[in-house]
């Protein structure tokens, strides 16, 4: 850590009010998850989750070439050779532990605060998986998303449930089976991304959305995401019954919000 202070860190973190912007800074390797980037990301998810002052996180890549190209295969290969030279068991153990990376993609470790991916370029394999694990994806016009694992005889491990959530079966299978990257526009059509913006503008757009989210009570945002995820895959009546437990009128945020609502004017409100 200490020597990284002198040069630019591998994950550049900026705080702006309640927003944490994390930029993957390894452009020469298309921001692939090696050289300590994976570990830095893991730490950042926890930092964001556990810091009550932070409300929204934006994740993006440095440069305009790549958001993140996924695992660093060159580095993985080198590591595997070194371990394999030690013993077959060492290699097996390393493979097993690498298969478990619970926090890496954000949406499976009780992180209920919003994370927005600002996709500034190639978004492939593990990078695509990470973007899919975020809550919203803003993609730049030149960027492409894809899961090319199938072309290299690798499995796209943690992607299937996310594809199902985001695109449902028909397009999900197209994406994993062909391995072909899709254009930004197609990504939005398939449900992979939320919005296309011109090149260079994804962070700015994500920031505007994040600022809007910051105006909402954190408890409100957290509640809805948590309930979404917990209501999937359970019977409807049970999911509805689970919703009965939140007494908003006992919170200060509710009373403050009512006052602000009275003064606010919504778009399309009929003129009196």
């Amino acid at each position, binding site marked *: 850590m200490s020597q990284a202070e002198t040069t630019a860190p591998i994950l550049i973190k900026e705080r702006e009010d309640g927003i944490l912007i994390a930029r993957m800074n390894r452009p020469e390797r298309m921001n692939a998850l090696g050289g300590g980037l994976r570990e830095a990301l893991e730490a950042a998810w926890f930092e964001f989750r556990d810091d009550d002052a932070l409300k929204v996180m934006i994740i993006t890549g440095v440069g305009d070439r790549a958001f993140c190209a996924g695992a660093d295969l060159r580095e993985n290969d080198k590591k595997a050779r070194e371990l394999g030279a030690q013993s077959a068991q060492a290699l097996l153990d390393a493979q097993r532990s690498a298969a478990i990376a619970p926090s890496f993609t954000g949406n499976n470790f009780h992180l209920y605060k919003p994370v927005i991916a600002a996709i500034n370029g190639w978004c492939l394999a593990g990078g695509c998986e990470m973007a899919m694990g975020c809550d*919203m994806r803003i993609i730049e016009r030149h960027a492409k998303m894809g899961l090319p694992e199938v072309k290299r005889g690798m499995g796209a491990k943690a992607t299937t449930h996310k594809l199902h959530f985001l695109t449902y079966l028909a397009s999900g299978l197209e994406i994993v089976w062909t391995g072909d990257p899709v254009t930004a526009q197609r990504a939005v059509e398939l449900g992979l991304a939320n919005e296309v913006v011109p090149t260079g503008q994804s962070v700015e757009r994500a920031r505007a959305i994040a600022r809007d989210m910051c105006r909402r009570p954190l408890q409100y945002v957290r509640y809805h995401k948590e309930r*979404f995820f917990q209501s999937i895959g359970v019977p409807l009546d049970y999911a509805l019954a689970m919703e009965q437990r*939140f007494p908003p*009128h006992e919170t200060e945020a509710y009373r403050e919000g009512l006052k602000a609502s009275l003064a606010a004017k919504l778009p399309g409100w009929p003129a009196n």
Partner: protein
Amino acid sequence: MPLLNTKAEGNVFAVEIARADKGNALNGELQRELAQAWRAFEGDDNLRVAVLAGARNVFSIGHDVAELAADPSRSPLPDDAMFALHTTKPVIVAVEGPCYGLGFELALSCDLRIAGEGALCGFADSNLFVPYRVATVLLPRMTFVGKSLDLIMSGRVFNAREMQEARLVTEVAATGAAAARAMELARGMAQRFTNAQAFRKRNIWSLSGLPLPAAMNLARLPRG
């Protein structure tokens, strides 16, 4: 003076929210009248399909904030009976203009949505700290999880086309024509309507989102 106009047109039950001077805000009285209307619809064998619309090209701006602010100790959570979800017969909603918050939830609880070109749907009031319980359950069953999170976390308002892209409306009509189109659709459905259709509506809602093997097993059970 009721805030909800209901009228039987043949086999179609037409329900209109008639509180346009307040943006068709759903105050306690309107919620009660909606619950009554669904009970009446469910209990009358002559009524086969219902159409819900808002008066004067406004669907509903949602909660009646003024009423809630008058007594902040009162829970803003609505009575679930105001939602059309539990009826066994089809309910079509015509959405024109603003359709926000609780109004949007009400529209989502119907089976088919026809939107006028000028419809605006979403959780627009970023100040209102109210859990949208029914929407959190229904949205991820109806559209992509990414779209659901976009709607509810960013509070972004979707226009009619975006709603259609998200598969949340079945059809977009010209501004002002949604209710007429919904009535046309309802008359056609009323002719074909049988009890088997009610059975399917219940199955579709209650089985959606379940793990596939569980859903297939439940679908085989006889249901009353």
